[in-house]
């Protein structure tokens, strides 16, 4: 069966070009970048070349890029590292209620260690109001952290405006840009960010590698203590094959971004338009200010996991914000934050596209989805109750 992959917000396949660049660093170029000999020096050269590529993609300086094990580590480091570096200034952090768990659970941990966190609400489309950020600032605020694009509903945040507000108050601003890299143009100066998290496997790079951008002069505690790697702030022998892969992947992902996004957006909009023709469905997230590849819809009277399993049997990989896929009894915190009732949040479907998807993939999804929905509704007592109530 020809499988269709529409879970690119979860992860993407590593591109062959990226893999080809990585392979020598498992073999002949196996050196430790800290070694003095030529094998080590070759490794150092590759490490710094990758760092330059990541910096170039973000409009940053190479010495502002720190390699990490991925988006979650970058988020943990930015939050914990800033909180502890600036605790003499205050103990208050501002974030949003729809951040990734790498931010939210880190904030909860910080709350247990004496920090106070404001979780800003979002509107029905998942947008943070910059005015709310400004209102939440106190003389104890030491960090603001807002994501660039939501991983579930794809909503883009007004990052440059929020950054401007943070800087006007002299507060460092961190942005989780894990979903944004390769999808929208990212520039740390235009965005007014002091720290920015990214993750390689979201844009056809390898898993287990990410980076944290840290603007020169930003106070940040070291995250891993040990050797002198990453200027002593993140110790441990560098994962060179993955770092080389990240450098290559981010270069490819940020080339021709507008042209690529336009093609992906056309597929996205065709999916949205046609899925919404199924009765009792709604779009989640902002209709315009959303990631080019994100489709998130709620399909009433059915449950998300059952829908995903049926799609999987039909050869389509997707994801959902239902409780059954979140590993708890509550559906996605993002869908609840935009005001969806539980029963509608349970029936959400996320299709996330990459530039590897084709119009033929879209055709196939649109061909099989309505039948699956109809079948699941036919066995749903909620659907029965709704129909009989309407007929009364």
């Amino acid at each position: 069966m020809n499988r269709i992959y529409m879970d690119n917000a979860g992860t993407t396949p590593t591109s062959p070009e990226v893999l080809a660049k990585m392979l020598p660093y498992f073999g002949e170029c196996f050196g430790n970048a800290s070694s003095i000999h030529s094998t080590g020096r070759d490794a150092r050269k590759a490490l710094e070349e990758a760092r330059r590529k990541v910096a170039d993609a973000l409009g940053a300086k190479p010495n502002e890029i720190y390699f990490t094990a991925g988006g979650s580590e970058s988020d943990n480091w930015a939050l914990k590292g800033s909180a502890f570096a600036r605790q003499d200034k205050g103990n208050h952090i501002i974030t949003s209620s729809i951040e990734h768990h790498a931010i939210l659970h880190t904030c909860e941990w910080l709350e247990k260690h004496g920090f106070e966190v404001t979780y800003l609400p979002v509107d029905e489309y998942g947008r943070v109001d910059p005015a709310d950020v400004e209102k939440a600032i106190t003389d104890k605020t030491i960090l603001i952290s807002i994501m660039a694009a939501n991983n579930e509903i794809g909503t883009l945040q007004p990052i440059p405006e929020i950054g401007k507000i943070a800087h006007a108050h002299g507060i460092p601003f961190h942005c989780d840009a894990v979903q944004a890299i390769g999808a929208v143009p990212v520039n740390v100066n235009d965005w007014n960010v002091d720290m920015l998290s990214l993750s390689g496997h979201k844009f056809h790079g390898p898993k287990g590698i990410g980076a944290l951008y840290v603007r020169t002069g930003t106070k940040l505690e070291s995250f891993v203590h040990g050797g002198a790697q990453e200027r002593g702030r993140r110790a441990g022998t560098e994962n060179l094959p993955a770092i080389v892969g990240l450098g290559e992947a981010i270069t490819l992902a940020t080339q021709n971004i507008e042209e690529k996004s336009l093609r992906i957006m056309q597929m996205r909009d065709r999916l949205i338009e046609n899925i919404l023709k199924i009765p009792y469905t709604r779009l989640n997230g902002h209709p315009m200010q959303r990631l080019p590849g994100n489709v998130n819809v709620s399909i009433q009277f059915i449950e998300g996991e059952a829908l995903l399993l049926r799609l999987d049997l039909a050869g389509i990989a997707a994801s959902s914000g239902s409780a059954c896929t979140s590993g708890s009894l509550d559906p996605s915190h993002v869908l609840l934050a935009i005001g969806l009732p539980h029963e509608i949040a349970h029936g959400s479907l996320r299709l996330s596209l990459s530039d590897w998807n084709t119009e033929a993939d879209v055709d196939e999804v649109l061909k099989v989805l309505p039948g699956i929905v109809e079948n699941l509704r036919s066995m749903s007592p909620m659907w029965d109750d709704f129909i009989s109530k309407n007929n009364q």
Partner: protein
Amino acid sequence: MYSEKVMDHFSNPRNVGEIPDANGVGTVGNAKCGDIMRMYLKVEDGIIQDVKFKTFGCGAAIATSSMATEMVKGKSLKDALALTNKAVAEALDGLPPVKMHCSLLAEEAIHAAVEDYIKNNPEEAKKAGIEL
């Protein structure tokens, strides 16, 4: 994460639908938690002659509903009341720990339907040796 049997009962659920002249109906769960199960029974002479279900829920919810109907079809009311969630889960070659509540819901749905029958037909139930 699901066994082959769970996937089989999810993909080809047995006894889906409703019984227009059912004499016992039970609904359990709620939409807020993401699972609702409704069981329809047609009971004659203390025996479950027919059983059907409708379920809003995840893969495990649909599979446990399907398996539970198979396990009580043709059985006595007493046997149906003795159905346990553990037996349903075992018949499906096990469920992931986070999905065990689905088998409990299937047990409760069968019990609720039987109790509905007993409430509506106390005399017949008494003949079958059951009182609420």
